[in-house]
C-alpha cells in the first residue's frame, strides 16, 4: 500500500485502527519527494526534520501538508517566491499555521508559487517553474501551483493555498485535485502575506471533497487579529458530506459558455451536469450580465491594492537590500530603486505600475473608484441569482493546462485563464473546483461550483454528491 496516495480521511482511519503511523505516512511522502520532486519542483523549501508530535487527543490530525510560500511560519524563511524577501524569517506564525500546528499537522515544506501570488502558471517564481505532474511540460496553473502539484504528485497528502482571483481553484483544476476558496472572512488572513487584501483568502487543496471539508474545519474561524474575519460559528463541514442533491436548484450562466471555452472542457462540464441531474438536482440557464467586466475589474482592484501592499519592500527592515554603486538621487532613494529593481520580477513590476497608475490622483476616479462600483454590480448579479438558486455551476478554467512558456509573453491571454474564477473573489463568495474528467491529452478538467456567502456546506454537499457518483477523484499520477 502506498500511503502517500491515500487521502487524509483514509489515513486517519488507518491511524485510528493502528494500521499506519504518522511516521510511516511522512516516510512515504518523503520517499515520493525523493523520487519525483526533481521533475515536479513543487517545493521551494523542504523541512528535513518535521517533528511528529505524540497524538494528544482524538482531534489530532497528524497528516503531512504543504504550505504555500506566502504564509508566515515562526523563525522559518517565507519569501512569496520573490528574491526581494530572500532571508526573511517571520517572528510569528500566521493564524492558519497556528491552527495547523495545534491540530498536529506535519509541515513538509513550502510550496512554489507565482511571485507574490501574481500569475496563473507558477512560472513567475524566482525559484523556477513548477511542472504539472500529469504532463511535465505543462504548467500546474497558479498562483498556488506548487501546492496543487505537490498534492497531485502525492508529495503531500494535502496542502494550503491562497486564492485572490482563482489561485487555488485554477491550479487545482489543472492538476486534477480539489481546490476550495472559502467565503471572504471565513479563514483568518493574519500572517498571509498580502497581494490584494480585499480579495485574498486562504483555502484547502486536497485529493477529494471529504478532505477539503476536513481541512477547512481546521483552518476556519474568527480571529481577533483579522478585522475582516467574521465572528460566526464554524459548523463541522464533514457533516455536510451528503450524497443527495434532490430538489436543489442550480444555475448555468450562459455567459460562461461562449467563445474561448475549449470544447473538451465544455463537454466534461455538461456531462458533470447530467450526473447531478440524475441525482435529482434541477438546472436552469441563468445570466450574470456583468461577467464580461470581471477580468478588467479584477485587474484594476488587485493591482491597485498590490501597489500599496508591496510598497513596504524597500530594503530597510528585512529581505534583500541593494545599494547604488554611484549616487544618482540620494543614498536613500537609490537604495529603494536598486532594491526594488533587483528584488521584483517582471510581472510584479508590471502590476505595481498598473496599480500605481490606477490609484494616482487624476486617474483614481476613472479606474479604481469605477472598479469598485463595477465590483458592486458583479456582486449584485450573484445576490440576485442566489435568491432563487442554491448554486451556480460551470468550468473552472476555459482550457486545460497549457505548455510551459506558451503564455509568458502574452500577459492578457494569461489573465483570461482566470475569467470564471475572479467573480467569486470580487463578490466574496465561496467556490470549489473538483476534477470532472480528462482531455484527450490526459490533462485534468475542473468543475467549478459557487454558492452564496457562508454556504460552504451547500458547496461541499453538491461537490460530494458529484464525487460519489464518479471516479475522477480516485485517479492518481504515477511518478
Amino acid at each position, binding site marked *: 500500500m502506498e500511503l502517500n496516495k491515500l487521502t487524509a480521511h483514509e489515513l486517519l482511519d488507518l491511524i485510528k485502527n493502528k494500521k499506519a503511523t504518522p511516521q510511516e505516512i511522512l516516510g512515504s511522502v518523503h520517499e515520493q519527494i525523493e523520487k519525483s520532486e526533481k521533475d515536479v519542483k513543487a517545493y521551494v523549501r523542504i523541512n528535513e526534520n518535521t517533528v511528529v508530535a505524540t497524538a494528544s487527543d482524538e482531534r489530532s490530525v497528524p497528516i503531512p501538508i504543504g504550505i504555500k510560500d506566502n504564509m508566515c511560519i515562526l523563525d522559518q524563511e*517565507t519569501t512569496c517566491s520573490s528574491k526581494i524577501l530572500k532571508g526573511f524569517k517571520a517572528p510569528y506564525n500566521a493564524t492558519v499555521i497556528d491552527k495547523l500546528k495545534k491540530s498536529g499537522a506535519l509541515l513538509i515544506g513550502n510550496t512554489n508559487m507565482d511571485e507574490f501570488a501574481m500569475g496563473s502558471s507558477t512560472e513567475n517564481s524566482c525559484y523556477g517553474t513548477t511542472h504539472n505532474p500529469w504532463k511535465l511540460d505543462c504548467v500546474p496553473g497558479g498562483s498556488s501551483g506548487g501546492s496543487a502539484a505537490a498534492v497531485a504528485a502525492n508529495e503531500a497528502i494535502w496542502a494550503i493555498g491562497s486564492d485572490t482571483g482563482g489561485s487555488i481553484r485554477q491550479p487545482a483544476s489543472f492538476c486534477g485535485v480539489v481546490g476550495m476558496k472559502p467565503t471572504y472572512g471565513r479563514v483568518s*488572513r493574519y500572517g498571509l502575506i498580502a497581494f490584494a487584501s480585499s480579495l485574498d483568502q486562504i483555502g484547502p487543496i486536497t485529493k477529494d471533497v471529504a478532505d477539503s471539508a476536513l481541512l477547512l474545519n481546521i483552518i476556519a474561524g474568527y480571529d481577533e487579529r483579522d*478585522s475582516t474575519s467574521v465572528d460566526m460559528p464554524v459548523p463541522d463541514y464533514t457533516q455536510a458530506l451528503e450524497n443527495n442533491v434532490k430538489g436543489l436548484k442550480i444555475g448555468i450562466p450562459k455567459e460562461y459558455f461562449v467563445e474561448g471555452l475549449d470544447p473538451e472542457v465544455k463537454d466534461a462540464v455538461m456531462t458533470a451536469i447530467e450526473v447531478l441531474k440524475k441525482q435529482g438536482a434541477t438546472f436552469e440557464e441563468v445570466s450574470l450580465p456583468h461577467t464580461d467586466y470581471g477580468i478588467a475589474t479584477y485587474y484594476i482592484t488587485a493591482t491597485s491594492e498590490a501597489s*500599496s501592499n508591496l510598497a*513596504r519592500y524597500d530594503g*530597510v527592515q528585512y529581505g534583500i537590500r541593494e545599494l547604488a554603486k554611484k549616487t544618482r538621487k540620494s543614498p536613500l532613494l537609490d537604495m529603494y530603486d536598486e532594491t526594488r529593481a533587483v528584488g521584483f520580477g517582471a510581472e510584479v513590476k508590471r502590476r505595481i505600475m498598473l496599480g500605481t497608475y490606477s490609484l494616482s490622483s487624476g486617474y483614481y476616479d476613472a479606474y479604481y473608484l469605477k472598479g469598485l462600483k463595477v465590483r458592486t454590480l458583479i456582486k449584485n448579479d450573484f445576490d440576485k441569482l442566489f435568491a432563487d438558486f442554491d448554486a451556480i455551476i460551470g468550468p473552472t478554467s476555459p482550457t486545460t493546462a497549457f505548455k510551459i512558456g506558451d503564455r509568458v509573453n502574452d500577459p492578457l491571454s494569461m489573465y483570461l485563464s482566470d475569467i470564471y474564477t475572479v467573480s467569486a473573489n470580487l463578490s466574496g463568495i465561496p467556490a470549489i473546483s473538483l476534477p470532472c474528467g480528462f482531455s484527450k491529452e490526459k490533462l485534468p478538467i475542473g468543475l467549478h461550483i459557487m454558492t452564496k456567502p457562508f454556504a460552504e456546506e451547500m458547496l461541499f454537499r453538491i461537490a460530494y454528491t458529484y464525487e460519489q457518483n464518479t471516479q475522477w477523484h480516485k485517479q492518481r499520477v504515477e511518478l
Partner: protein
Amino acid sequence: MTATATRKYETVIGLEVHLQFDTATKIFCGCANKFGETPNTLTCPVCLGLPGALPVVNAKALEYAIKVGLALNCTINPFVKFDRKNYFYPDCPKAYQISQFDLPICSNGHLMIETADGEPKKILINRAHLEEDAGKLIHDNANNCSLVDYNRTGTPLLEIVTEPDLRSAEEAYNYLQNLKLTLQYLNVSDCDMEKGSLRCDANISIRLIGETKLGTKTELKNMNSFKAVKAGLEHEINRHEAALESGQTIVQETRL
C-alpha cells in the same frame, strides 16, 4: 507689524494640530504606548509593518476621538473609514500611513476664542481624523548612517484641522490655548509639546482687505511651543507684507 500694513492687508491662518492620545496601547496593535523607552522595545509585527500582519483598531482611541469631537462641537460620523496615505520613508514601515481621508470620525465643529478686542469669535473646525504616528529617525553622523526607532510608530494621533478662520497670530495663539485647555480637561493626552504629544502646523497667507481669494501660503512646521507658533506667524506676516509691498510675489513653501 506696522499700523498701515495691518489696515491694508488681512491675515489668514489655518491650524492643524496633531494630538497624541495617551491610550495604554497603540492604535492598531497591543504594544504599549509610552515615551522615552529603549528604542525598538515597544514593537510587534503589526507596528513594524511586517509582511502578513494586519491592523485592528483600538476601541479606546475611537472613544477618545469621539470625546474630543463632542467637546469641539463636531458631528460624530456614524460611518467612518480608514485610508492609506502612501509614501516612501524609513520612519513609515509599511510605506503608507493609515489615516482617514473622505470619511473622518469628526467633522464640522467649532471652538470659541476671544479676539484682541475681547469679542467672542467662533473658529470653525473642518475635521478631526484618526491616524497613526510614524517612527523616529536618528541620524548618526559619526558613523554616516541613520537609525530608526519604531517605538512611536502606531501611536494614536488625532489631527484637528481648522478652517482658515484665524485673522492674526494672537488669535492663533488664543485658539491653541483654548484647545489645549479643552483637551487637558478631557484627559485624553498630556498635551506636552516638548515630548511631541501635541504638535502644531500652521498655514499662513495674507491678502488685501476686501479680497476673497486666498493669497499664496507658507506652511510652518515643527514649532515646539505656542509662543514659537505666535512668533513664527508674526515673522511670516511681516515677511509676506514686506514682500508684497516691494512688489515681489510670494512663493509657496514649507518652513521647518
